[in-house]
């Protein structure tokens, strides 16, 4: 079946049924879809009729109602707000205005009350009256610029009479009043002072300018332009004529002199700088003669502990006295034993270090106390705790605290010092002194290399720490001797020890060098400087590290420094000591040196204050610069602490403890008087005039020049000169033209 258009309408052609079949199938499909949709409608209707859906729809409806109500409420609120706003505006316009007026009235009352209270305004320490002086001066100058002065609000409102009150708040005196005249005098002085400051700033600027300091010249003006006055003025300073002499305070030592006490295992600092260590050892009491008590504190001690054992054994030496014994003849563990501080095994630098580090001191004392206990009792301490009491068993003996005080003082003295160089023993104007020999520098370098090797070994040991506590503690104490405070553990707990080892390695590792230190034989001075720098890295603090050198002192100066020499006038021992004490008040390093020697002498150390004096350049007859108000110009005074015996050895070393210049004033001022004199502007001619007599006749007698002729020649010459200066375009006379250039 098919459909065809025959002009009237569509005609179904039954023979063409394929399309009909397709249509029928399509309809059936649509009907199926319709059925499914109807089923879904029925399901949805059923769902909508369910209680949940009904409730939901009720909620939606309620929400819609609430929304409507809220909108209505918002509208009402807006209306109320508008109403309140209008009310507020009305209130502001009327009520608030009244309230402000009331507050103003109240404020006035309070102000009046405060004014009454503060009438004694001077009772306040606060700055209440600050006057802009420059503004006041401007007003004053404006007032006196006219005659008679004009006093009003634009200037200063002085009333013309008592009844003429210009400003009731200012109770200024009337014109002509005594107070007003006094005020004018003060204002005059103000004007003068401001003027003086202006002149001064300008003068300073000009002064700096002609001195060749244009930067400072501009600086003064720049400061003044900011309304401030510069702090320093050179132009008003009176030059102080005079000259300088130089004073040097030295400690001269014999590098070959043995130390008064030594330790078997000196630390790195003492190995790097044995000269200074020896000198410090002379400043400290011998630790072998300083003792402490080692006491065992038991957890429960029955009864009071007995008194210390026999102490009548005299001053404790390296061998301590016998301990107390119990009834069985065995050492009584309750009796404290005495221990010489030499058993702590600290070198001089070590004592300086522990004097500033109580933790390390305590650890070392405890360690030494344990050893001492074992040595006395033959066995480790029993249960309990070893306590080291810093009390000397000898009445009046040197105490641990005394040794530490001496160490602190010696540390201060060496910290302020530097190594003595040969140049310090010669006059600056003399030829350069011979530097330390290459061999002497190599000795220093060898010390540096030895400590480098020691440090390498220590770091490697700490990087793989031993398990045994004593061995690890020993390593940590070695690290502490290199100035590593972190190496000191709080206790001997193994974990803490390991942590301290780690910290010590972290501090020590950067001090290691890639290659050992080497000295340059061709440059001993430079090598010494590098060695000192490397030693500071290794030791953890600055060491003077003086090198030994052949004394550059001449025979006279060497004789001056011998014991008992008194060649220089005024260089007696008591005079030099008094001079040192005077300078100690203004030279901290000198004061430290003297305080150290005071302590050393009082505690029985080896060093004594023995200042000897020489003066460079040496003269046969001379007065020491410290003993005369007018010392020789250019003199260099050497005050030497003799730490070498009676005679200056051929090879010396030492420390420069202090050095300064002493200005010596002249007797008067070399000044000048400048005056203005209007000298003539005329100056001699720049040209030599060679005149020839105008009469060329050979008959003219010689020497016939007369004044008129001479004047004519000069006048004519000047006429020519004036003509020479006439501009080209103004010159009417044709002349000789020659090339100009």
């Amino acid at each position, binding site marked *: 079946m098919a459909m065809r258009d025959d002009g009237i309408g569509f005609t179904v052609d039954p023979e063409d049924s394929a399309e009909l079949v397709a249509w029928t199938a399509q309809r059936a499909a649509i009907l199926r879809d319709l059925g499914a949709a109807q089923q879904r409608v029925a399901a949805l209707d059923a769902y909508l009729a369910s209680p949940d859906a009904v409730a939901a729809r009720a909620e939606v409806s309620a929400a819609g109602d609430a929304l409507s109500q809220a909108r209505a409420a918002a509208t009402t609120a807006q209306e109320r707000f508008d109403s309140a706003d209008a009310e507020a505006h009305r209130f502001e316009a009327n009520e608030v205005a009244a309230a402000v007026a009331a507050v103003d009235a109240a404020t006035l009352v309070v102000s009046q009350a405060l004014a009454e209270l503060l009438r004694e305004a001077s009772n306040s320490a606060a700055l209440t009256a600050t006057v802009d002086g420059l503004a006041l001066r401007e007003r004053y100058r404006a007032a006196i610029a006219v005659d008679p002065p004009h006093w009003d609000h634009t200037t200063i409102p002085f009333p013309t009479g008592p009844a003429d009150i210009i400003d009731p708040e200012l109770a200024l005196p009337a014109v002509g009043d005594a107070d007003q005249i006094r005020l004018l005098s003060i204002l005059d002085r103000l004007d003068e002072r401001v003027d003086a400051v202006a002149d001064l700033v300008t003068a300073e600027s000009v002064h700096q300018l002609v001195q060749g300091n244009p930067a400072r010249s501009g600086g003064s003006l720049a400061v003044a332009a900011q309304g401030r006055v510069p702090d320093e003025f050179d132009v008003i300073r009176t030059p102080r004529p005079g000259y300088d002499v130089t004073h040097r305070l030295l400690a001269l030592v014999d590098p070959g002199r043995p130390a008064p006490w030594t330790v078997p295992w000196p630390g790195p600092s003492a190995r790097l700088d044995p000269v200074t260590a020896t000198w410090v050892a002379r400043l400290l009491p011998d630790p072998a003669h300083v003792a402490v008590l080692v006491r065992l504190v038991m957890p429960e001690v029955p009864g009071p502990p007995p008194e210390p054992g026999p102490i009548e054994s005299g001053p404790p030496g390296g061998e301590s006295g016998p301990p107390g014994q119990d009834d069985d003849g065995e050492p009584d563990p309750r009796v404290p034993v005495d221990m010489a501080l030499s058993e702590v095994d600290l070198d001089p630098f070590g004592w300086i270090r522990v004097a500033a580090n109580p933790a390390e001191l305590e650890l070392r004392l405890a360690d030494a106390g344990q050893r001492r206990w074992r040595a006395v009792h033959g066995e480790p301490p029993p249960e309990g705790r070893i306590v080291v009491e810093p009390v000397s068993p000898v009445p009046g003996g040197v105490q641990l605290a005394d040794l530490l005080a001496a160490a602190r003082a010696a540390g201060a003295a060496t910290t302020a010092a530097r190594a003595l160089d040969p140049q310090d023993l010669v006059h600056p104007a003399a030829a350069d002194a011979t530097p330390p020999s290459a061999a002497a520098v190599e000795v220093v370098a060898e010390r540096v290399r030895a400590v480098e090797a020691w440090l390498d070994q220590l770091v490697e040991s700490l990087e793989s720490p031993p398990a045994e506590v004593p061995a690890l503690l020993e390593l940590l104490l070695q690290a502490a001797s290199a100035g590593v405070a972190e190496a000191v553990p709080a206790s001997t707990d193994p974990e803490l020890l390991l942590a301290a080892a780690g910290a010590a390695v972290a501090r020590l590792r950067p001090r290691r060098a890639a290659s050992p230190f080497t000295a340059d034989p061709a440059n001993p001075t430079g090598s010494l400087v590098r060695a000192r720098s490397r030693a500071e890295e290794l030791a953890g603090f600055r060491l003077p590290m003086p090198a030994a050198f052949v004394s550059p002192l001449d025979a006279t100066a060497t004789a001056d420094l011998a014991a008992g020499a008194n060649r220089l006038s005024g260089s007696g021992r008591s005079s030099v000591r008094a001079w040192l004490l005077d300078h100690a008040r203004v030279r901290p390093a000198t004061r430290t040196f003297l305080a150290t020697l005071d302590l050393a002498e009082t505690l029985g150390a080896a060093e004594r204050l023995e200042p000897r004096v020489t003066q460079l350049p040496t003269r046969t007859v001379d007065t020491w610069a410290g003993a005369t108000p007018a010392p020789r110009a250019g003199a260099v005074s050497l005050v030497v602490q003799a730490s070498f015996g009676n005679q200056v050895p051929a090879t010396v070393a030492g420390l420069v403890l202090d050095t300064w210049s002493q200005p010596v004033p002249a007797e008067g001022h070399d000044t*000048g008087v400048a005056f203005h004199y209007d000298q003539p502007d005329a100056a001699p001619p720049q040209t030599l005039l060679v005149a020839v007599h105008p009469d060329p006749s050979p008959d003219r007698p010689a020497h016939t020049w007369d004044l008129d002729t001479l004047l004519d020649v000069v006048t004519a010459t000047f006429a020519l000169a004036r003509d020479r200066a006439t501009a*080209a375009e103004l010159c009417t006379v044709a002349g000789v033209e020659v090339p100009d250039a």
Partner: protein
Amino acid sequence: MPDLSLRPVSTASTPESREEALSAPVRDPLWLLARQWQTRGFVADDAGSPIQVRLGAATAPLWMDGPVTAIEPLVEAEPRPRIDDLDLGRLVELASDLGRRLVDAGVATARTALAAAFPFAPTDAGLRIQPFVRRIPDPRPLYHTLVAALGVRGDSGTMPAIPGLPPGSAAGVEGACRAWLGWLADAVVGTGADPAPAAWDPERLEYRFRLTARLPQATTALPADEYDGSGIEWYTFDRADLDPSTGSGEQPAAVEVHPVPVTYPGMPRPRFWELEDGDVNLDTLAGTDAAHAVLVSFAHQYANDWFLVPLAVPAGVTVIARLTVTDTFGTTTEVPAVAAVDGGRGPWRMWELTSTDPDPAAGAGMRLLVPPSPAPLAGPSIEDVLVVRDELANLAWLVERTTRDGDGEPVDRYQRYLRLRPPTDPAFDAGGRAAERLRYRLGTALPDYWYPLMSATGDGGRPLLRLAEVPPEAIGVGDEGVRGRIVPHDPGTAIADEEALREGLHLTRQDRLVTGGRAVVVWRARVKAPGFGEGSSGLRYDILEQ
């Protein structure tokens, strides 16, 4: 084409011709003469050139109870202290010196006997002094004993008996003790020392003194009313009370000297063809600031009219009595002083003494040249004190930053306060107290080194700032033994209100040393300098805190 004209053009209209005009070329002799004529080099307008000067200068030495050779030690020095007032450190120095004198005398063993007879046993010795306790003799009783027997200088009387001296040591001990006393006589006094210098004004915290000078025409007083201790200069002094009736009348002898022109770097040369110093070119700076403009203006107008004559003068007040110039024609001209020409327009003039008299004209031209003592060697500050305004607390404060303890060691008072302040100080543990209840305090605690200065009124209504007491409860840290001395802690101590400016005051004490009339002069001086601005103690009243 080259310019064939020998003559210059009259006007320089192009840059090239301007440059040519300024280049000052040297040509023929007539050209040189012409240039010199054009620059007025041949005008005989003034007198002859000065060739000789007769100069009469009178110098009067300075006088203050005697001739003055060095002013600073004379004025600034605190009086010698009593030996009983010395700090322990200084006592140790004295005892050590005596010990060394005994060693010099060969009686070293006598030190033990002296230490036993006069034991040095202070109860408040610090760490530095402790090692000396009972090991050296105490200089105080020893000094008093020796002075009573041998006199202040140890040059009279007989040696007192000292128990325990080793046999045969008496002569050596006596010699050492006499020498020790002789040395001490210049350092300490036995009794009656005033702690402040005589010239010190405790209210104004500065020196106030007066010198005199007797000139030919008059004797003048030289008051120094506001010397701050920073170094004496001519401007420290004024002049006053000029009394012509007391002049010496001695006319100074005139000296004949040759003047030389004043020169300075960059100065223009007066002659046309003279080459100037190329290092300094003032003209390039003329427009930069006033000083350059002044200098360039002076240089261009007056450079060749100023002359200089040398004059060596001793220290004192100098007046140029007469200056007569003789020129090349033999004409003599009297040159008056600037001060005499200008008259007394004002009291202040640069480098001259300012007059405090009603008529400044009399005595004008008076200059003071201080004794040429060099800048002293100065030690560290012994005491460092601030006076500050505290607008919040409505007070002024005396803040003692550094003082000395009994050992003579410097004490940083701030660090000391932090170390010693009581645990009740809220700053100790602010977090730990947060849980506590609120409590009321009358006021916050004060650091012990902040001393309040309350306003007060002195004689004649002078406003003062009076040192006030603080209740001990408000401090918590005691200041015994470390109090400062510049502003004494005595009842009634007050300073002038106007001295405590807004920038505050900075007061220091220090030892100074110069080489002066004797070999060495050492003294203890005080210096007043501007402070560092206002400060706040943090003091608050009526507070609630946790």
